[in-house]
C-alpha cells in the first residue's frame, strides 16, 4: 500500500467511524442507565434517514440555491433529531417502562421485536409513491439520497489523496455534536443526574433524582443523535435502504462494546476504531469478509476484555 492509499483508507475509516460513533452513543447511553441493549436503535437510525429523505424531497432541496440549501439542511437536521428523540422517548414510555421490573430477557426481546417492526415500516416507507425516492421504485430497493454537499477534491483533482468538503462537513459536525454532548453530560445538572443514575439508580432515587425523567432524557438524547447521524449518513453515503439500520446498528454496538459500554468517550473511540478497521479490511481482505472480520473482533473482545478498551474497573458511565 502506498502512503496515499493508507491515508485515504484512514480518512474513509474516520468519516464512517463518525457515523458509527453517533449511533454507538445512543446504545451506550441507554445501556448506561438501563443495562438494556436497545436493539431497535439501529432501525430508528434507518427510519430517521427515510424521514430526512422525505423532508429533503418535500423541500425540493436538490434544486435549491447554496444559501437556501444550507438553511434547509440545518432545518432537516433539527427535524430528524426531533423525530429520533420523539420516537425513542415514545418507545421508552410505551414499551420499556412497563417492563422495568420484568426479568432482564423481557426488554431485550421487546427491543428485538421493535427492531423488526421498524424494518418492516421502513420497507413500507420505501414503497410510498413519491418522486423523492430515486433509485429503485421497488419497496426493498435502495433509495438514492440526494448528493447535496460539494464533492470536489480540496487538494486539486490531480492529487491522489482525496479530501472533499463533504468529508470535512461529516467530521466537523459530528465532532461538534460530540463535544456538545460531552459538555452536557459533564457540566449540566441533567448530565450529573444521568451519571448518578448510571452509577446507581436506587441511590440516585434516594437523593431525590427523578430517575424516570433522566431515563426519558437519555432516550431523547440517544434518539436525537441517531437522527443527526442519519442525515449525515445519507449525505455522505448517498444511499439508504430499510436494511441499513440492522448492519450499522450492529457495527455501532460493536463499537460501543469495544470502547466500554456506558462510556461516552469509549463509544467515540470505538466507532473510530471500527470505522478504520472496516476500511482496511475492505481494502486488504475484501469487502465480502467485512462482517466476518468485525464480528470476530466483537467476539474476541467480549471473551478477553468484556469491559472494553477504555472500560476501566469503574468505568465512568453516562
Amino acid at each position: 500500500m502506498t502512503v496515499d492509499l493508507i491515508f485515504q483508507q484512514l480518512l474513509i475509516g474516520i468519516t464512517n467511524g463518525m457515523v458509527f460513533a453517533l449511533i454507538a452513543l445512543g446504545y451506550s447511553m441507554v445501556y448506561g442507565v438501563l443495562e438494556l441493549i436497545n436493539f431497535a436503535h439501529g432501525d430508528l437510525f434507518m427510519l430517521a434517514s427515510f424521514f430526512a429523505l422525505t423532508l429533503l424531497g418535500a423541500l425540493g432541496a436538490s434544486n435549491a440555491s447554496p444559501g437556501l440549501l444550507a438553511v434547509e439542511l440545518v432545518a432537516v437536521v433539527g427535524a430528524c433529531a426531533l423525530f429520533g428523540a420523539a420516537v425513542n422517548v415514545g418507545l421508552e414510555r410505551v414499551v420499556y417502562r412497563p417492563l422495568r421490573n420484568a426479568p432482564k430477557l423481557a426488554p431485550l426481546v421487546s427491543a428485538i421485536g421493535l427492531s423488526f417492526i421498524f424494518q418492516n415500516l421502513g420497507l413500507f416507507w420505501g414503497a410510498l409513491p413519491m418522486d423523492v425516492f430515486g433509485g429503485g421504485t421497488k419497496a426493498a430497493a435502495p433509495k438514492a439520497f440526494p448528493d447535496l454537499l460539494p464533492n470536489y477534491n480540496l487538494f486539486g483533482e490531480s492529487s491522489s489523496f482525496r479530501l472533499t468538503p463533504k468529508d470535512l462537513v461529516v467530521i466537523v459536525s459530528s465532532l461538534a455534536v460530540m463535544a456538545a454532548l460531552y459538555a452536557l453530560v459533564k457540566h449540566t445538572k441533567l448530565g450529573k443526574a444521568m451519571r448518578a443514575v448510571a452509577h446507581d439508580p436506587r441511590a440516585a432515587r434516594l437523593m431525590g433524582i427523578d430517575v424516570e425523567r433522566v431515563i426519558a432524557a437519555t432516550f431523547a438524547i440517544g434518539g436525537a443523535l441517531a437522527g443527526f447521524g442519519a442525515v449525515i449518513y445519507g449525505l455522505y453515503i448517498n444511499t439508504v435502504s430499510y436494511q441499513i439500520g440492522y448492519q450499522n446498528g450492529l457495527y455501532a454496538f460493536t463499537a460501543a462494546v469495544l470502547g466500554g459500554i456506558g462510556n461516552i468517550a469509549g463509544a467515540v473511540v470505538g466507532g473510530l476504531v471500527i470505522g478504520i478497521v472496516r476500511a482496511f479490511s475492505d481494502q486488504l481482505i475484501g469487502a465480502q469478509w467485512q462482517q466476518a472480520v468485525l464480528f470476530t473482533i466483537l467476539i474476541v473482545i467480549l471473551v478477553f476484555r468484556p469491559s472494553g478498551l477504555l472500560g476501566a474497573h469503574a468505568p465512568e458511565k453516562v
Partner: protein
Amino acid sequence: MATEPATKGAAPAATPSATPAETPSATPAGTAPAPAGKKNLLGLIVLALAVIYPLAPFIDWGLAAIGAPAANLDRHLVSIFVFAMLALALNLQVGYAGLLQLGISAFFAIGVYTAAILTVAKYPFQLELWGALVAAPIAAAGAGLLLGAPTLRLRGDYLALVTLGFAEVMRVLLLNLESVTDGPRGLNPVPAPWLPSTVESLAGRAATTGHLHQLVIYYTALGCLVALVVVFRNIEKSRLGRAFVALREDELASACVGQNPSRIKLIAFAGGAAVAGLAGALYATNLTTTAEPNTYDFNYSVMVLCCVIIGGLGSVRGALLGAAVLVGFDNVASPMLTRWMQKSAGSDTGNVLLTFSNWRWIIFGTALVLMMRYRPRGLWPAERRREHDGDAQPARAQEGSA
C-alpha cells in the same frame, strides 16, 4: 406386640388434624393428573394423525374441501417437524437454562452443511442420510462446545451478542468459502436416503420411488421429533432438568447448593446445538439442497426465538405449538390472506401493502412486544412455572380456613 396397638391408636388421632391442612394443597395435586391426561390424549391424537397422514389420502381430500392448499402438505409437515426440533433446541438453551442465544441458525447451518458434505457427490464420503444423522449433531455440538466454553461465562446480553456474531461469521464463511460450500448456489443435490433393495422393490410396487423416499424422510423426521419430545419431557423431570431451572432462576444460589453452573450451561448449549444439527441434516435431505447460506441469517434465528417465546419458554408443548403456528402462518395463512387481500382490493399485485407476507415482521415484532408485556410465559406455559407463579395455593388455604 405392645407397640403395634399404640401406633394404631395414634394414627387415627393424627389423621383428623392432618386432613384440613392437607386438603387445600391436595386438591390441586389431585386435579392435576386429569388435565395432564387430557393433554397427553390431545398429543396422542395429533401424533396419530401425523402418523397416518401420508398413508391416508382422504385427509388431503378433506383439506381440499375446506379450501386449504393441501397438495404436498407432507413436505410442509417435514418443515414443521424440523422447525419444531429447532424450537426444542432453543428451548433447551433459552427456556430451561436461561442462556439467551441469538444464533441458533449457525448450528442449524452446521448440521445442514455437515450432512451435505457427507452425502453429496462432490465429496468422497457418500455416507447417506443415516450417517449424516449421526455426524451432523456431533459436528454442531462440537461447534457449540468450542463457542460455549470461552463465552458462556459472559453476562446474558453479551452472550446474546456473541452468538449473534458467531452466526453472522458462519454465514459469511459459508457464503465466501466457495471451494468448500459452493457459495450462494449451495451444495446439491443431497441424495435421498438409502434403503435395502428388498424394501425398495417391495414398496416400489405400491408407490413411486420419489414418494417412497419422501415417506422415509417424513417418518424419520417424525420419529426424531417424537424421540426428542420424550427425551425433553424426561429431562424436565430429571435431576439435570431441575439443575437447568435452578441455574436460570438464580446462578449464585445454584452454585451454592453444589451445582457447577459452567458445566450445566455447557451441557445445555452443546445439547441444543446437537439438536439443531440433527434438524439441519433432516432439512437438507428434505430439500435435497443446503439452500443458499443467506437462509441461515439473524432473521431465521429470531423466527425460532419467536416460536419459543410465543409457545412458552421452557415448555415442550409450547415449542411445538409455536412451530406449528409460525410455519402454518408462513405456508398456509399468509398465502391465503394475500389472495384474499388482493381479491378484495381489485387484484393490485404491485402494491407491497397487499402482499400479506410483507407484514410478517410487523406481526412477529408486535407479537414479541405484546407477549413480553402481557403474557411473558407464552401461550402454553410450562407446568413448573405455573406452580411457582400462583398465589393460588395460599388463596385456597385462606378460603379453607374461612
